[in-house]
């Protein structure tokens, strides 16, 4: 997409000027990815609203269930995902200034923080299983496992996408002027990862905090 390259070159300076801002009004990544993101957000919105309604109908059960969750683990996971998202955001800038190696390094850091999330989440599941708690324990844990496991799968998919982006960046594919659409692919992958982060931003307070 020629506009992507145009924006990429424009963003390589520190800040767009006021006159250039109007010209740069473009959606990062592919339009199809944004429709996919909207679909994902809608599914999770239904989950979130369903969880809130179920909690309103079973206040005691949900309070007891939340008391058994590890809030610190949830907090560490939140910080890990926000930090991972930060590294993906600055790796996109590295790509725009044609610094592939720096972009790869930042993507690897993003993957490290994503791995922190994976390890802690698995530990959290294991500790619940050891207490004899599983998806059939009660309505709270059914929804807890459904929502968090569904989000977990999105994290895994996001990590695969980040690895693919890092591989392409390492091979210099985003610097090939004949493959401008590939740069849009990098933006799309980054936006998908930010969506996963955005979902956790809602999921964590809803399930762990309130």
């Amino acid at each position, binding site marked *: 997409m020629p506009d992507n390259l145009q924006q990429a070159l424009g963003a390589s300076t520190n*800040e767009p000027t006021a006159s250039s801002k109007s010209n740069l*009004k473009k*959606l990062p990544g592919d339009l199809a990815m944004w429709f996919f993101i909207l679909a994902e957000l809608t599914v999770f919105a239904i989950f979130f609203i369903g969880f809130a309604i179920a909690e309103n109908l079973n206040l005691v059960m949900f309070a007891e269930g939340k008391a058994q969750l590890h809030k610190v683990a949830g907090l560490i996971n939140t*910080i890990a995902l*926000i930090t991972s998202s*930060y590294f993906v*955001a600055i790796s996109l800038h590295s790509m725009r200034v044609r610094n592939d190696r720096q972009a790869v390094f930042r993507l690897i850091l993003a993957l490290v923080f994503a791995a922190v999330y994976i390890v802690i989440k698995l530990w959290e599941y294991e500790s619940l299983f050891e207490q004899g708690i599983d998806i059939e324990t009660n309505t709270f844990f059914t929804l807890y496992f459904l929502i968090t496991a569904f989000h977990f799968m999105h994290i895994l998919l996001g990590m695969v996408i980040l690895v693919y982006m890092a591989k392409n960046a390492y091979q210099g594919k985003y610097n090939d002027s004949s493959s401008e659409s590939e740069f849009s692919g990098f933006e799309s992958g980054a936006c998908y990862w930010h969506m996963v982060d955005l979902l956790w931003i809602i999921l964590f307070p809803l399930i762990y905090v309130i």
Partner: protein
Amino acid sequence: MMKFWQRYALSWGWLIILTMASVAIGQYFQYATLNSVLFIAIVMLIIALKGQQIVDVFMELKHAPSLWRNIMLSYVIVVPLIITLIYI
């Protein structure tokens, strides 16, 4: 003029502070037995503020076509608002 990494770093710091704030408020209300609806409304407001940072800074929608930015910002406002209304 703020450099690109300063903008992202500020956003990251703001997101961490808001996360800590929501957990701290949760702990406070747990022991203070104050109005739970007020507590939920505050936490949902924090979600909206964090969502705005991700949408505008990390997703870079601040300078995107307003339709897409408005859709994404609506999500981080409307979903927490619905959740708050359910708990009232």
